[in-house]
């Protein structure tokens, strides 16, 4: 209570030396998230994010416009022409499909925005100072996670809106309610996929002391899990593992077993889950998430009339397991990061 007597050179709010009322405190995670968000916007990786997702937006504008126009003129109103903006692959190149492109780059972005979240603070020597402020320890990790998710979600939303706007104004395609719902579901699905990789990067940043090492591990995981057909490291591994587990020989039963083993193994990769789910949710013509493994399945799939369309909730039902698994991986990664961070010594 002597603070009021402080000399002119000494700072002081007069009055109680006790802490300020807690009611005026914004929750710690909000302050951390706001600061991290501002940091991200000024950082070099934000420009990388803009460029990569900018390319995603340019694909339909430069490549797909022609095909969409011809498709639109020939199609009946119901076949979700609007969504074709996101699913068409110009010149038959898979990589240039918007969903595919985002599916490949999203993991990289997720890891890029979180690989140094905690070990970066440690390296700069700011962690003890940050944790000695009146915030909960998990506010740090929660705030950082939300800031990363917020910034990627924001730019992703901008990209979706730019493509949609292009479709509306230049091509004159108007989305139906269902199209909008499907697009929103795909946006949330992509957000979940990004969140999964953010959580993975966060885990690396907590467990691994050096930011460079965690970046390399994140990059390696991305290379094996998310890279598609041109450099199918993940597929290669799955093929080898599948070959060991269920070798395909002449016997049709064995071939079938090998195929389903391989599909099972592929589905262990979150990238497969995301790819299957995003194709299903954006294309009402896709009636099954699995690739046909047997001849009869293939025939069955081919025999379906092109007019057989899934309603939105039916599509959602098909990919529900995918969503649950992606969510589970995200939760596990984040929980591991969380627990590791809580138990870690402040100076390590």
């Amino acid at each position, binding site marked *: 209570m002597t*603070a009021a007597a402080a000399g002119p050179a000494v*700072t002081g709010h007069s009055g109680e030396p006790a802490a300020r009322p807690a009611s005026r*405190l914004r929750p710690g995670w909000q302050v951390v998230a706001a*600061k991290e968000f501002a940091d991200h916007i000024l950082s070099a990786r934000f420009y990388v994010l803009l460029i990569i997702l900018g390319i995603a937006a340019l694909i339909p504008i430069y490549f797909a416009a022609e095909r969409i126009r011809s498709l639109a003129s020939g199609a009946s109103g119901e076949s979700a022409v609007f969504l074709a903006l996101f699913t068409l692959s110009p010149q038959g190149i898979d990589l240039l499909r918007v969903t595919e492109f985002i599916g490949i780059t999203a993991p990289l972005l997720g890891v890029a925005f979180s690989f140094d979240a905690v070990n970066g603070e440690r390296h700069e020597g700011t962690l003890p*100072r940050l944790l000695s402020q009146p915030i909960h320890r*998990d506010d740090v990790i929660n705030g950082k996670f939300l800031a990363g998710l917020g910034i990627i979600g924001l730019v992703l939303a901008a990209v979706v809106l730019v493509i949609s706007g292009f479709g509306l104004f230049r091509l004159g395609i108007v989305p139906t309610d269902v199209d909008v719902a499907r697009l929103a579901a795909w946006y949330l699905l992509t957000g979940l996929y990004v969140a999964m990789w953010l959580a993975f990067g966060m885990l690396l940043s907590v467990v691994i002391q050096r930011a460079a090492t965690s970046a390399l591990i994140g990059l390696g995981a991305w290379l094996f899990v998310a890279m598609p057909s041109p450099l199918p490291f993940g597929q290669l591994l799955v093929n080898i593992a599948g070959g060991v587990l269920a070798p395909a020989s002449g016997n049709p039963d064995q071939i079938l077993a090998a195929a389903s083993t391989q599909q099972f193994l592929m589905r262990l990769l979150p990238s497969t889950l995301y790819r299957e789910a995003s194709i299903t949710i954006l294309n009402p013509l896709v009636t099954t998430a699995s690739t046909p493994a047997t001849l009869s399945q293939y025939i069955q799939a081919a025999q379906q009339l092109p007019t057989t369309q899934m309603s939105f909730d039916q599509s959602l039902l098909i990919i529900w397991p995918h969503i649950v698994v992606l969510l589970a991986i995200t939760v596990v990664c984040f929980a591991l990061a969380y627990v590791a961070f809580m138990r870690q*010594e402040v100076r390590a």
Partner: protein
Amino acid sequence: MPRPGRAREPMPRKRDRGTTVPIEPEAGTEPLPIVAKGLTKRYGEVVAVDHLDLEIEPGEIFGLLGQNGAGKTTTILMLLGLTEPTSGWARVAGFDPARRPLQVKRRVGYLPDAVGFYGAMTGRQNLRYTARLNGLSRDDAEADIEAALGQVGMAARANDRVETYSRGMLQRLGIADALLKDPTVLILDEPTTAIDPLGVVEILELLRRLAHERRMAILLSSHLLSQVQSVCDRVGIFAAGRLIGVGTVEDLATRFGESEDLVEVGLELGRTTDRQAAAAPLVRLLGELADVRSVRPLDGMDGAVIVHAAPGAGAGVRAAILGLAASGTLPLTSVRQVVPSLDDIYRRALEVRGLAGHGEVAA
């Protein structure tokens, strides 16, 4: 497995720590800023802090002295609730740091060892972040930041990016950062390392003012003993996790001071190449004086020797030396009584406690 602080303030557990001390201050009482009883931290087999008992009064500057690895930082982290004690308890501003860490952190300004700031932000922006984390309103914050920057002499460089700062400037900014929340307790881990000698005087002067004018309790740790000597009301000597001596510098000097009176004698040896040979007859002369036990050359100072006299005989020996000088047999340049510095006390304390081996590292 070490179990550092929890995030959410946990509910008071049934399993008590063998104490009935409340974890929050009782209404109407003004609690001691820092109390610790039997505070112990073990990392597996290693005992980092061993049954620490400590009490610090409001307005007191307490110096925690010890070499690297003595357990100073671990003690500080336990007081802040950043790491959980293995046993024993502490109260900071009346709150239990292990169970009410937020209450403690609201009241304690902390300067970590090797403090860091976000390099891409300016000093002022870094302080703004701290202000927001402490819930200061925008207007309050700007005025407080300005005042804190002025106090540590960083106002001129506040708008430069932190990555351009020197180590000493980071340290000053760290003190400003700790002052921003208007703390009742200030805990400074090695506050004067890397600050230039003139800066150290300023910083110590600031600390003294904060303690005396605002009754702030200040706990500072240091291994630069002579710097801290001038500012601390009391010091605690810390070695191998234990507090081996607590008190004012004078108290400790009598407890751990030399058991002999020391007199430093400067000798005029002339321009000879073999100084030892030139000094030898003079050393013998000094050794023959009454009450003198031994004479040792002082390292690094040519022509200076330390005369070890029996306790209480220092004045007599000095008079005798001056007598020799007056009679012309001793080419004397100086005679000085040696007062034990904190460094000497520290070394002696370690010797007395049989920890001298560790002391070598500190020097």
